[in-house]
């Protein structure tokens, strides 16, 4: 099979995304987690740009720029500020140990691909196989949120999931209408800010960002 160049590029970026998702899943250090997240955003922006270029859809350029601004510069900067302020550099050992997580992750990827193939068949876009990867990276970030103990890393998982969604949107459907994308972007931004506020509050109430403090409310 020989796809046109941009298609190969997009597939490459897709693969990179998946790789990064795995990397984040296994990463213990919060700091490098953030860097990985920024990297993921960057790859996302690139792929968006490529899609834009290949399909000559101008509004995708904007969303690429948006991504760049938001997910590569703004959010990582905010997160950096946060962890410096709260100095949580290390995440404690995740709930499930890394190899097990990896195994589960691989299962998920396979599952996601199976899920996506029937759809990929009917997809009109040239970048059909990316849907599976998008799904996989979403599920992986979900898994990451489950396994992490620190509030920060959970949030990063949340944002990573957002990335996966965004990738799915751009690569499989050439992007949502602009209104929607702006709205989504806004929400993500606000969400992050609120998270920031929360970190400080949780911190000052529990002297830690470890979420096992947040297990008081339950059925006894």
């Amino acid at each position, binding site marked *: 099979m020989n796809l046109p160049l941009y298609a190969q590029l997009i597939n490459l970026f897709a693969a990179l995304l998946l790789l990064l998702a795995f990397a984040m899943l296994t990463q213990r250090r919060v700091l490098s987690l953030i860097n990985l997240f920024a990297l993921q955003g960057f790859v996302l922006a690139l792929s968006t740009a490529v899609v834009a270029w290949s399909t000559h859809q101008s509004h995708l350029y904007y969303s690429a720029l948006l991504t760049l601004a938001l997910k590569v510069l703004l959010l990582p900067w905010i997160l950096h500020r946060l962890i410096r302020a709260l100095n949580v550099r290390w995440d404690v050992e995740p709930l499930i140990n890394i190899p097990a997580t990896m195994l589960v992750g691989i299962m998920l990827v396979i599952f996601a691909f199976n*899920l996506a193939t029937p759809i990929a068949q009917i997809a009109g876009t040239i970048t059909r196989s990316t849907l599976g990867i998008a799904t996989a990276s979403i599920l992986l970030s979900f898994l990451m*949120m*489950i396994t992490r103990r620190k509030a920060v890393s959970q949030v990063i998982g949340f944002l990573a999931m957002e990335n996966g969604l965004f990738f799915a949107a751009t690569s499989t459907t050439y992007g949502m209408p602009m209104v929607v994308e702006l709205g989504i972007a806004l929400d993500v931004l606000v969400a992050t800010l609120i998270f920031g506020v929360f970190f400080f509050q949780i911190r000052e109430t529990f002297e830690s960002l470890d*979420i096992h403090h947040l*297990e*008081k409310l*339950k*059925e006894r």
Partner: protein
Amino acid sequence: MQPVGAAVTLSVIWIGLGIAGLAFARAPRVITGVVFPAGAAVALALAVTGLWALGAPASSAILPAGLPDLPFHVRVDPLSGFFLLLLGGVSFGISLFSCGYFRGEGEQRLGLLCLQYHVFLASMAFVLIADDAYLFMVTWESMALSSYFLVTTEHHSEQNRKAGFIYLLIAHLGALGILLSFGVLHGGHGDYTFDALRQAELSGFWATAAFLLAFFGFGAKAGMLPLHAWLPEAHPAAPSPVSALMSGVMLKTAIYGMVRVIYDLIGGIRWEWGLTVLLFGAATSLFGVLFALMQHDLKRLLAYHSVENIGIILIGIGLSMVFIGSGHPVAGVLGLVAGLYHTLNHAVFKGLLFLGAGAILKSTGLRNLNEMGGLIRYMPHTAFYFLVGALAISALPPLNGFVSEWLTFQASLQAPLLESSVVRSLVPIVAAVLALSGALTGMCFVKVYGVAFLGQHRHELPEKPRDASGWERAGMIWLALACLVLGLLPVLMIGYLNDVSRALLNAGLPDEAMASGWLWLAPTSAAQASYSPIVFLLVIAAVFALTFLVVRLVYHGRLRRADPWDCGFPEQTSRMEDTADGFGQPIRHIFAPVFLIRREIPRPDDPQPVFRQEIEDRHWNWMYLPVARFIEVLSRHIGKLQQGRISVYLLYSFLTLIALLVFVQ
């Protein structure tokens, strides 16, 4: 103007009166002096409407309310008419009594009380005339609700709150059963009017399911074994007129529901169903009277007697179902007539007895029999009316209780008609149980009357008890008269009941039975059985007068007062006469296995020895508590799912997602 219109109007007026009561909450005089008498008048009018409907053909109407697809349908046929008569007639007496009884009730309470009381009455009336499942359920539940608030009027006592809770809970569960039974009846087409339910053709299994659901659903309200647990708790808790209303009338709406659903809506009665009803009825009546004999709280005792009488009614209905199911409609009619007649009679005398208990409670503040005694000397009127009620409930001729039990016996004596020898030999045993419980009732009321009204009074009252006031007397007189009339002229009422059964089963009693005139009651034929209470009463009265005169003339009427002799024992104190518990002792001795007895026996060296014993109802232990425990355990396990850890919650969502994805693929 048709009966249905009148019935609806009157019920609405009742609601209006209730609201008026709330409006005049600041003026108790107005409530007791105007609103309650007006309510009584409405009740009387309703009774008349009932009589009218007994003769008239069924009339129906549709009210501009209810669900958009299912407006309120109302219909009054002879069956409803009969129960409207019951409701109106009995609540007339009770409302009259209330006018006097609620004097001196706390202001802010009286307004609410008036509202709930009249809403209660109105919802009962609507239950009787409802002609679609929705209106029936709505009014059925508002009946339960309003009576619940009446039961919890004294909500400061923990016991009353518990009583109210159990009452409403069981009532609600029963209602769910009824609702489900309607659903089964409906069978999936047409709407939920009773007509549609009548039309629905059910397969054998579903018919039986509907029957069972309805039977237990209504049984829960009627206080049938083993769903009776709420009754002896709730009835005593309410203010006495309300207890009278609940015991006298509300339980009967459950009987109405049974008859309406089983005979009218389901139709195609089988003898197996009848046997079920019969056996439950027998068990209920025996159990009820045995526990009544163990009580020393007057109102509790009366409540247990309601259980017993519901059992007797069920025996009558069960017999009729057995006969109809095995193809003997005439005998079936006899059973139905017996059951319905006992329904009316029980309403009357139980209402009377509760009113009497209320009068005692008001003037002495006592409910515990062991503290009463000798009241006949302070409140002769109450004593007399109570005696009438007691004789009636003990099924003694020539009062009304006897007539219906007599009819039930007659129905059971039709047993030779039946083919299946098992049923044929079960029926007489049920008759034996009926005889036993009847005799036990007699004993129980000798105990009640003897301990409460006769003998020496057992504990010093602050002031001399007053007899019932004018309003209260009026109420009791009305019901006592009803006991007498229904006892002396049963033929008239049975003629009406015959119409009811004609409308319901289009079969009636044989004509010669009706032909035998108002004096002689001969349900099947004069040769088979006959009974004439009037001759009965007249002869006894005549002999009474005769002997009295003869003794006076031939001998003399000299009389001397002295201390009681009692075999020459000196100073008789009231501690030497039997208490209520003492009187029940032989029964406790004979039927010991039935009861769950907790004894507290004093040590021999106890300076103030106290002997206490509690009789408990086994049903709590083998039925209610296990269910509660099961639910509790289940919910504890479900609660474990939610133990506060956010990762686990996320995992739930994750797994749900995965599972659904797999499912969709």
